[in-house]
Every structure is written in structure tokens, then in C-alpha cells.
């Protein structure tokens, strides 16, 4: 299930993932909303903290990647498993009207908030963020 593209980045989280080849990759649920000056993207990433979150912007392609930090359940017998333990990954295409230098990301309680400010001249135009 490791369909992750190999790129030049290598963080601690990713090294761990490469060791654990069997880890699944999940697509996080997102809300995308347009406020007056910004486009805001909210993504549910339960179990991911700021040090295991990897955001990359390559031209128009924004990639969110999070490595889930779960308490070890060694020695435990599973009784009921509704969510699999794995990592999160999702790719978005953003339009040129986003001011790349002022993108802000915060993570709190397992939710990533990504603020994509509109460039001055595009503040009145619609900005497309397309989920892929």
C-alpha cells in the first residue's frame, strides 16, 4: 500500500516509514473554505504532531504528509479495529493566485490549518484549490 512517491526529502518520520513497509497510507478528510483574504484548508490528521508533518509545495502541487504517532500496542490482542494505523497523504493543486511566501500552517488537536493568502491583485478573484 506504499504508493508514496520518492522524492528528495528525508525526515525522521519518513525513514521510520520506510522501515515499516506495511504501514498503510490514508487520505485525510479536508474542508476548504474561502474567506475574504485567504483560502483556508483544514485537514483531519488525528495522531499527527507538528514534528511529523511534512508539507511540500512544488510549483502548483501541494503535498500534505503526516506520520501517525501511536502508542505502542505490543502485547495487546486486538478486539475491535475500526481505524487502521497508518500515515496520511493527500495532494492538492493550487492556482497561481496564492501568495506562496505567506502560506502559514498550524497543527492543533490533530487538525492542520493551512492558510493560503491571496496575492494582492487576486484578492477579488476566485482561487482554485483542487483536491486530487
Amino acid at each position, binding site marked *: 500500500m506504499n504508493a508514496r512517491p520518492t522524492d528528495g526529502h528525508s525526515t525522521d518520520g519518513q525513514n521510520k516509514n520506510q522501515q515499516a513497509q506495511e504501514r498503510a497510507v490514508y487520505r485525510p478528510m479536508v474542508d476548504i473554505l474561502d474567506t475574504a483574504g485567504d483560502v483556508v484548508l483544514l485537514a483531519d490528521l*488525528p495522531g499527527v504532531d507538528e514534528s511529523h508533518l511534512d508539507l511540500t509545495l512544488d510549483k502548483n502541487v501541494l503535498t500534505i504528509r503526516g506520520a501517525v504517532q501511536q502508542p505502542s500496542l505490543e502485547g495487546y490482542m486486538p*478486539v475491535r479495529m475500526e481505524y487502521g494505523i497508518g500515515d496520511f497523504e493527500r495532494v492538492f493543486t493550487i492556482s497561481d493566485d496564492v501568495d506562496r511566501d505567506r502560506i502559514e500552517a498550524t497543527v492543533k*488537536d*490533530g487538525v492542520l490549518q493551512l492558510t493560503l493568502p491571496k496575492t494582492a491583485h487576486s484578492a477579488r478573484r476566485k482561487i482554485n484549490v483542487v483536491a486530487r
Partner: protein
Amino acid sequence: MRIRELVPWRSHEHEKGQLSRRNEADPFINLQTEMSRLFASFFEGLGGSFGKDGDLSQLATPKVDVAETNDAVHVTAELPGIKEEDVEVTLADGNLVIRGEKKAEKEEKQKNYYRVERSYGSFRRSIPLPAEVDDQKVDASFKDGVLDIVLGKKQTSSSPAGKKIPVRRQD
């Protein structure tokens, strides 16, 4: 706009072999959600206040994993975006009940939604525990949107086969 984008259940699910985290992916949770919605709308139609226990139109049923060892039960629940003061955990009749509310961010009034996949609203989840637990040995913690509860199992007395009940002879 391509016509495919108007069809919600075909909107690029399972792209790149990734798994969907939507509740709809699990047929049982989906069924439970649908039944809850049906009941809620039925009672609403009666004009009663039966369905008022939470906003069932926007169910945010959390997903739960349960695991156990010989002496402990471990429950984890995914609750992204929920503050610890909005979560309540209780133990009753061998069930662990998690309830809470996920509030929508309301800081800005002027906004348009392009995409809404995350769910908001009240939820209540009752999880039957696989063993009797000692309510004095419960530890719940909350980190990065994951609720983590460890419950110590009740230590059975010396005879594991069950408690022996003496039978008295009645004169």
C-alpha cells in the same frame, strides 16, 4: 465543470490506492449512521424532543480501536479537532461511553465552502468492553486528536473458573 465532479460518490475515491477514511467506507458504521438519521428524522416528524440529544444530521461518530492484554484494556478513539474539555468519558455497565461535541470554527462570517468532508456536531459512542474493568484504574489522555484510554481489568479472585456460591440447607 466536468459532470463527474457533480457525482459525490465518484469523486476521486481510492485515488493512488489510498484508503478512504470516510465513514462510508465501513458498511457497518454507514448502516448505523443511516439508522440514526432515520430515527432522528422520524422523531422530528412527530414534533417531539426525542431526537434532540445532539445534532444527528451531522454525525461525527468517532472511530475506535480496542485492544486487550491479560490485565488491561486499551481504547483509542480518533477525535481530530475536539478540545479535551468538550469530551466526556464515562464507564457504565461494562460499557465505555465517549461523548462530546465537535464545534465548527466560527471566527469568520464571510466564507464560502469549496469542499466539506470533515464532520461536525455532537456524538456519543458506547463501546462494550471485552472484560470487567476496575473503575479505579482508568487512565485517559488526549493528544493530537487521539483519545487514549487504558483500563485496568478487575483482578478475579483466586478461582478463575468463577465465584463459588455456597448453598445453604434450609431447615
